[in-house]
């Protein structure tokens, strides 16, 4: 067999507690579309970043045309002919198509030869069978056209290995077809393509070879003719639920909130579910499944366009977080730094922020002592490890910061707590503690919505699991029904019952 254009050989990479990649080898051949699939956190992104020089592997090496190479950054990767394009095209909206294509070119002298640039841009686009006006500014282009510009940019750099990270996520069906045609053109020109996809039917349609990553390990790598969708899903799951904090059974209480046909333009459609007291309702799905948007709509940050929310028997239209808080809905954001905490301020100030009204004297002055007492109470209850509650939140570890956010929202005395990725980026010990807290809260009669990309967490903690895929509700599984296969099958949009697929 011919030598691969790029061979990633025995790559391992570790981040603190997690082994992101463990001895992964992947061969990319010229004129082949190689698809890479895996669950969230399986290590796909890490692998791309190593191939493009963003990360350095702990072990292993990149071999280009049989020669080992050291790639230190993405400029060097480009010089070797390795380019990557991502879900969101990175075009400069105020520059025209030709300028975008040649943005990375340097060393052509201080004067821009406009006419020559337009000629060359036209030639590249013609080679790709793309019909675009090179003088048009990129702002008005459709997403598919922007992606074509990105690909043209890569071609202009004589790309030999093109890595495409979920390029179809934001495209319509018609645009996907265009993109695939483009990929086949590139393939016929001898480019090696690595295609990362979440939609199995697309992978099966376009790929020549399919590799599956699971927990940082390469599970399988087979030619297209030998794979089936059931086989891929089987390879993707297979983790064991052991050593994992499991939710203790809680008697399900009364109905608290019913959501019916919730809709938001360009985000999600027709979402319906019920939340009961003492119940944890999991929201599962792959990245881009728009689970967070549902959470934001219920909390009033990005209100829904249509649909009903019936809270404790009354229909409510939630238009702002203030209103959601008054109803008793709290939302713990996935982005601690940006939306969750005011980092330079103290633990006390962060916890009391939404509920300052509670700490006022008759004259409207703030009772600092009561504020501090509340913070102390939560410090003990959730065992926040800090020398003082007057300390700055920035100084805490991720797990302790997460506990501060939880305290902040528990202090609002919510009826329904929406947790968005509550254990992302925190260590194993803190994770278990957070799970324990969720369990206790459910036992106290709160209704909990748990959005998580960690499949095992969702399965261990939830009473029922709502699976979403690209803004649509694929079904609600009970704890008994919710096997990894069943969840993944729904999340990847495969029809038919999970049992059929596994066979």
């Amino acid at each position, binding site marked *: 067999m011919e030598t691969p254009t790029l061979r990633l050989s025995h790559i391992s990479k570790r981040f603190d*507690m997690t082994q992101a990649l463990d001895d992964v080898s992947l061969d990319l051949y010229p004129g082949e579309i190689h698809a890479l699939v895996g669950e969230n956190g399986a290590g796909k992104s890490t692998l791309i970043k190593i191939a493009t020089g963003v990360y350095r592997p702990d072990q292993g090496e990149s071999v280009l045309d049989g020669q080992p190479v050291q790639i230190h950054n993405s400029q060097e990767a480009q010089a070797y002919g390795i380019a990557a394009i991502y879900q969101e095209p990175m075009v400069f909206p105020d520059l025209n198509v030709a300028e975008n294509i040649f943005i990375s070119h340097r060393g052509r002298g201080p004067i821009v030869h406009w006419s020559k640039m337009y000629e060359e841009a036209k030639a590249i686009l013609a080679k790709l069978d793309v019909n675009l006006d090179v003088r048009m500014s990129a702002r008005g282009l459709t997403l598919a056209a922007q992606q074509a510009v990105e690909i043209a940019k890569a071609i202009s750099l004589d790309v030999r290995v093109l890595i495409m990270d979920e390029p179809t996520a934001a495209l319509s069906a018609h645009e996907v077809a265009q993109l695939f045609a483009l990929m086949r053109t590139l393939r016929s020109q001898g480019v090696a393509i690595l295609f990362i996809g979440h939609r199995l039917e697309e992978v099966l349609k376009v790929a020549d070879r399919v590799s599956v990553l699971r927990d940082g390990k390469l599970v399988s790598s087979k030619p297209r003719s030998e794979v089936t969708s059931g086989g891929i899903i089987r390879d993707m799951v297979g983790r064991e639920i052991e*050593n994992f904090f499991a939710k203790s059974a809680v008697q399900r209480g009364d109905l608290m909130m019913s959501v019916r046909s919730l809709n938001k333009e360009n985000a999600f459609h027709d979402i319906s579910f019920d939340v009961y007291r003492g119940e944890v309702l999991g929201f599962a799905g792959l990245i881009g499944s728009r689970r967070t948007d549902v959470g934001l709509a219920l*909390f009033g*940050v990005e209100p829904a366009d249509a649909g009903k929310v019936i809270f404790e028997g009354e229909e409510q239209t939630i238009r*702002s*977080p*203030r209103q*959601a*808080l008054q109803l008793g809905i709290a*939302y713990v*954001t996935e982005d601690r730094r*940006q*939306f*969750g*905490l*005011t*980092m*330079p*301020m103290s633990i006390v*100030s962060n916890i009391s*922020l*939404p509920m*300052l*009204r509670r700490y*006022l004297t008759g004259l*409207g*002055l*703030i009772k600092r002592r009561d504020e501090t007492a509340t913070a102390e109470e939560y410090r003990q209850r959730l065992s926040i*490890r*800090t*020398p*003082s509650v007057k*300390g700055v939140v920035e*100084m*805490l*570890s991720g*797990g*302790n910061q997460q506990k501060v956010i939880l305290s*902040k929202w528990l202090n609002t005395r919510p009826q329904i707590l929406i947790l968005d990725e509550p254990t992302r980026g925190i*260590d*194993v*010990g*803190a994770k*278990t503690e957070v799970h324990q807290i969720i369990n206790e809260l459910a036992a106290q009669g709160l209704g909990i919505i748990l959005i998580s990309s960690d499949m095992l967490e969702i399965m261990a903690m939830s009473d029922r699991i709502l699976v979403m895929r690209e803004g649509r509700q694929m079904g609600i599984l009970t704890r008994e029904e919710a096997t990894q296969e069943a969840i993944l099958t729904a999340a990847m949009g495969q029809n038919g019952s999970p049992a059929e697929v596994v066979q």
Partner: protein
Amino acid sequence: MTTQTKASPAHPSRHPLLVYLSRWECLLVALIVVTSAVNSILSPYFLETQNLFRASSDFMEIGLMMLPMVLIIVSGNLDLSVASNLGMCASLMGWLFNNGWNIWLAAGAALVLGGMAGVLNGFLIARTKLPALVVTLGTFAFYRGIAFVLLGDQAARGYPSSFTYLGQGTLGNTPIPFSLALFLAFALIYGIVLHKTMFGCSLYAIGNNEEACRYSGVAVDQAKTIAFGLSGVMSALAGIILAARFGSTRPDIATGMELDVITATVVGGINIFGGSGTMIGAVLSLCLIGIVRFGMGLMNIPGQVQSLAIGFLLILAILVPQLGRRLSLGNIRLDRKTTILMILAAIVVAAFAGFFIWSRSLILAPAPAY
């Protein structure tokens, strides 16, 4: 399962007194003491209470506008329109007075107009989501324009003495100017508002992370509108006091004063990016700027040269807290950036001291013969 417990995070374990003394407010006090000492050595007139009190009234308009400016800057915004708003309100008052209104009614109208102009600023910023810098740059020109429309090239004068008392009078038989007493009373109120009320606390949170505040149900837009509204009212009040002090009003009154107001705020240790600073720091800074300017004025150093000294202070006010933050965060490390900051701070201090001595020598040299 092995659970690794993380060690508690590194925390500055420095002596509390040292932390306290390294606060910018303490440095301001020290600077006030030093400049006062130097001033009193160089000029026998400096320490006369009469002189000091009289000089203080030159800064009270700046001070009155500085108080709400602290709130605005803490919330991560900026109000460039304060001096223009002052001009507009004072001009309205003068125009109404020229047209036969009672001066107190005219002053009341000015306060209402100022408040409305401030609320308009806040409303535009909250609604359009444009940066406060841009919005108030627009109203900066707009409000000054209205002042000229109202008064043209005329001046309003002939205010009754009961009115000019506001700017020129003293409290009873004491030498304390009315405007100083007014300022101190407002400073106390604003200090309480900023540090002890829900409104003040939410301003700090907004200045640190506006998005997190929205997610926490804080009424962000409302808080901004109130802060700008207060700024408008205080601008109008400063306009009334200034007109009373001058005894007349011209449409170009207080041109450029917004920069003095912002300077006083920043020298007071209020972070220009929002989120930190104290009211006491701002008041001390006004005091320091006043003493430096008054001391130099006593020795006939021209205003432009005085500005140089204020410029040094401003740079110092930005450098030192940065340095302080680097040194107080965890263990003290002399990395490259810290060293550069320290050297820069040292240069500024040396330049300031050198400049101070040089400016004095100008005075001590024999006066040129006419």
